[in-house]
């Protein structure tokens, strides 16, 4: 390891703010991008299931009214 202890590692020769700001911003941006990609996939799949359930309900309702008319 290049640094002697952890406090000098965090200090980064006095440039700690800028170095950690850069690495923090990069990590945060990549994380947000990944979370967005991951959760949109889940949203899309639930959307498909909701649509499927809706179709089933529409079919059932249509069936019911048809039966009601015949009686």
């Amino acid at each position, binding site marked *: 390891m*290049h*640094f002697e202890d952890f406090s000098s*590692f965090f200090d980064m020769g006095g440039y700690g703010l*800028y*170095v950690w700001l*850069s690495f923090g911003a990069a990590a945060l941006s990549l994380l947000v991008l990944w979370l967005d990609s991951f959760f949109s*996939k889940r949203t899309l799949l639930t959307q498909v*299931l909701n*649509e499927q359930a809706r179709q089933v309900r529409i079919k059932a309702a249509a069936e019911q009214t048809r039966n009601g008319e015949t009686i």
Partner: protein
Amino acid sequence: MWKWLHPYAKTERSYQLCQRLLPWFSVLGLTVILFATVWGLAFAPTDYQQSEAYRIIYVHVPSAVLSKSLYSAMAIAAFIGLVWQVKTSFMAMMALAPIGATVTFVSLVTGAAWGKPMWGTWWEWDARLTSQLILLFLFLGVISLYKAFEDKQQAGKAAGVMAIVGVINLPIIHYSVQWWNTLHQGATIMKLGKPSMPPEMLWPLLLSILGWAIVCGAVFLLRMQNEILQRDLRRPWVVALANKSSTLSEGK
């Protein structure tokens, strides 16, 4: 080769290919990026001029390199989509655009955080910085143009033309440090002859570029899947897939 490539024009096959590659890209990308970052931050030697501040290079350069490569990839996808009318190609373009925008944003933020201690300013309207900012606007422009159209085929064409026209910015970014007087330093790695960096600094840098590339590849696979799902939302294979994944998550 065309016979081999042809099935991937079918969305279901592309989706499955993404699914198969995704875990490999994710694990490998994360490993390489962490390894290279720790190496660069804690083990690489210090710079004689900039002392520890130079370590910003290990996020700044990968993000800047990737921003240009992702733009090229997006423009190639747009070109294929426009010329050969390949539907999946426009989807690839739209999967790449947000990744490119994020990476470009990172390069600008890390550049600002490096500029403040070294040049004494967060931002300067100089050639390299401004052309990189234009790159960010091009990515955002492609995304918003695509979203502005209801008909996605038409949206792909319009956004594709914009992506291709924007390619003119890439050589401008690359040569901006030579053509104009700028604060930004010249090329260190991407130039003729030997890179002007000792190997113990260069290796973690090259590795972190590789790591960023693989991570971007993983996010691309994920977003490509989303684009395909979005387009095929009512297709039977997507419905079957949604049912299968919901039973899987209920089983846990």
